[in-house]
C-alpha cells in the first residue's frame, strides 16, 4: 500500500538529483502512442537516462521486439532494428557479434521474452552475450488485447482465461529474473517495479548496472520491470499502481538476483536486497 506521505517524501530530490524536468537528448520529442498511465514511457525514460549518463548513445543499437513497445524505436535517437516476435535476443546476438564495439540492448514484453522467445532469451543469456535486456512484465499480452501471458498471476482474468488463470490448466507465472540468475553467462539480473517514485529510483540504478556489465564485458545484463497496463487490467492508473504493489510484488519479489560486480559466481542465484530507494 502506497501512502501519500511516503510518496511526498520520496519526491524530495536526492543528492545529485534535480527536480526540474530536463530534456534528454536520447529521447526525441515525439508524443508516445502508449495508453495513459502505461509504464512503457517511464521505462523508456530510464533506458534513455542510462544511455545518456554513460555517454554511449552514439554507439547504441536498439533491437525492438513485438508488443506494445514495437515502436520504441520511434522515440529513441539511436540506431534501431526490428526483431520478429520473441527473437530480439538472437537478433541482438548477431548485432553484437558483428559489431563488438556497439552497445546493444533489447526491450521486450513478457509474452515476447518469456513465451515465444524463451529459448532465444535463455540461450543468449547463457552464452553471456554482451547485451542488455529490458523485460517489461505487465502480466498480459498488451498489444493483442489482454490475453494470458506467461507472467499472468494465478486467478488473474484475461481474455483467454475468463475464469482466471489456474495452476492446474495453465501453470504458474514464470519468474524470469530468478531463472536468469541461474545462468553462468548472466552478469546482472534484477527485478524492479515502476509503481512508485521509490521503486523507479531503484530501477534507474538497476538499469545503469545492467548496461555497465555490458560495457565492462562481464556478460548479459537483465532488468525486469513490473509495469502497469491499465487498459488491459481495466483499472485506472492509480489503481494499476496499487495492483503492482499489492498483487504483483508478493509473487514477483523485487531484488538483485545476481550481480557479477559484487558476487562470486558460487553465490549466483541468491536474491540480494532490493536496490534501496
Amino acid at each position, binding site marked *: 500500500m502506497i501512502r501519500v506521505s511516503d510518496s511526498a517524501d520520496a519526491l524530495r530530490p536526492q543528492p545529485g538529483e534535480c527536480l526540474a524536468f530536463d530534456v534528454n537528448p536520447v529521447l526525441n520529442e515525439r508524443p508516445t502512442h502508449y495508453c495513459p498511465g502505461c509504464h512503457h514511457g517511464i521505462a523508456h525514460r530510464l533506458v534513455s537516462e542510462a544511455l545518456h549518463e554513460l555517454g554511449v*548513445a*552514439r*554507439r*547504441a*543499437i536498439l*533491437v*525492438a521486439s513485438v508488443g506494445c513497445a*514495437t515502436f520504441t*524505436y520511434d522515440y*529513441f*535517437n*539511436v*540506431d*534501431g*532494428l*526490428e*526483431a*520478429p516476435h520473441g*527473437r530480439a535476443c*538472437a*537478433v*541482438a*546476438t*548477431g*548485432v*553484437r*557479434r*558483428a*559489431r563488438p*564495439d*556497439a*552497445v546493444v540492448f533489447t526491450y521486450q514484453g513478457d509474452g515476447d521474452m518469456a513465451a515465444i522467445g524463451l*529459448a*532465444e532469451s535463455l*540461450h543468449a543469456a547463457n*552464452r553471456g552475450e554482451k547485451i542488455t535486456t529490458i523485460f517489461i512484465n505487465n502480466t498480459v499480452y498488451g498489444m493483442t488485447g489482454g490475453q494470458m501471458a506467461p507472467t499472468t498471476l494465478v486467478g488473474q482474468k484475461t481474455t483467454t482465461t475468463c475464469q482466471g488463470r489456474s495452476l492446474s490448466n495453465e501453470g504458474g507465472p514464470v519468474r524470469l529474473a530468478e531463472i536468469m540468475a541461474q545462468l553462468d553467462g548472466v552478469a546482472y539480473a534484477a527485478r524492479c517495479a515502476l509503481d512508485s517514485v521509490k521503486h523507479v529510483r531503484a530501477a534507474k540504478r538497476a538499469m545503469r548496472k545492467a548496461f555497465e556489465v555490458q560495457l565492462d564485458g562481464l556478460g548479459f545484463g537483465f532488468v525486469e520491470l513490473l509495469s502497469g497496463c491499465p487498459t488491459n487490467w481495466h483499472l485506472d492508473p492509480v489503481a494499476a499502481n496499487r495492483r503492482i504493489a499489492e498483487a504483483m510484488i508478493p509473487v514477483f519479489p523485487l531484488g538483485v538476483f545476481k550481480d557479477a560486480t559484487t558476487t562470486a559466481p558460487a553465490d549466483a542465484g541468491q536474491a540480494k536486497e532490493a536496490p534501496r530507494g
Partner: protein
Amino acid sequence: MNASQKERVLIKGNEAVAFGAVDAGCRCYFGYPITPQNEIPEALSVLLPENGGAFVQAESEVAASNMLLGAAACGIPAMTSSSGCGISLMQEAISYMAGSHVPGVIVNMQRGGPGLGDIGPSQGDYFQAVKGGGHGDHRNLVLAPATAQECYDLMFRAFALAFKYANPVMVLGDAIVGQIKEPVRREPPKDALRPEAVMALAKDWRLEGYGGRGEGAAPRLLKSVYLAEGALAGRNRLLMEKYAAMRAECAFEQTDTNDAELIVVAFGSIARIARSAIRRLRADGRKLGLFRPVTLYPFPAEALRALAPGRRFLVMEQNTGQMVEDVLLALNGAAAVSWHGVMPGLFIGADDLTEPILRALKEKKQ
C-alpha cells in the same frame, strides 16, 4: 591470398562453401547442425576465428537465422546454412530480411522431404526458395551450384548480390553438391568484388551507432512493419521494383544447344548427371543440348525462350515437379515441354537418365 591458396585442393562442396565464404569477406556465421551440410559450420568454426570473424552455434535454426538478421543489418557479410526442416524454421527471419532490406546469405544443401524425409539429395525446396518461402510477398535471389568449384565461386556472387540489392540470397545445393569431393581452385573468380567493395555497398543503411557517421548524424532504423494507411502498399511497390531490377542478374549455362532438337533443362547436381547422359547420347549422333539455370530466381526465362523455335524441352529435376512450372511459364506455349522427375533421396547415375531422354526424343519424332 597467398600462393598456396591458388593451388587446387581436394575438398567437399560444403568445405568449398566455407572457403568461398571466408575469401568473399564473410565475417559471421550462425548455424545449427543438420546433415548433409555439417562440414560448413565445422570448417567455419575454424576459419572464421582465424580471420577475425565470429562463429556461433545457435540453439536452433530460428535463432541462427535471426542472428543473421542482426549481423547483416550491421552491414557485415554474414551467413547461415542448413537443410530440410532447418530451412523451414528460417523462413520467419528470411521474410523479415526481405521486408527490412537486409542482405543475409543462406545456404541450403537440400535433403529429401517432406517432413524429416531423408539425408539423400533432393531438389524439393525449389518452390520454397524461388517463390519466397516465408510469409508475405517476398523473393530471394537463388543461386544453384552444380560442382564443388561452383560452391566456392558462387559464394562471392552471393555476398555481392545480397549487398547490392540488400536482399536475402539463397545458395541452393543438395546432398550431392555438398558431399562431393573434388579439386577446387581457391582463387576469387575474375569478376568478384573485393570484400571492402561489398561492404561499401552497405554504407547508406548499415547500423553502426549514429556516432559512426559523425556527430549529429540521424539515427537509422531497419524494419518491416508499416501500419499507416497506404504505407505497406508503398513498401511492396518498392520491393517489386527491386525484384524487377534483379532480372539483370540472370545467369545460366548452355551446352550443345545450337544443333539440338531436344534441350534438357536441369539445375544443380541433376544438370551435371544429365550432362554425362547427353554426352554419351550425342556420341551416338543424337541432337541433344543442356540448358542449366545458375540463377533460379531470377529465372533465365528470356534466354530459354530464345532457344524455343524448332526445339523441344525436357525438364529433369529431383522432385515431384517444380521447376517445370517456371519452364512452362517462360516458354508460354512457344515449344513443347515434357518432364522427368527423380524422386527425392535417390542417388542416380547417368544411366538412369538416358532412357527418359531417349523417350522424350522419340515423342518428338512422332
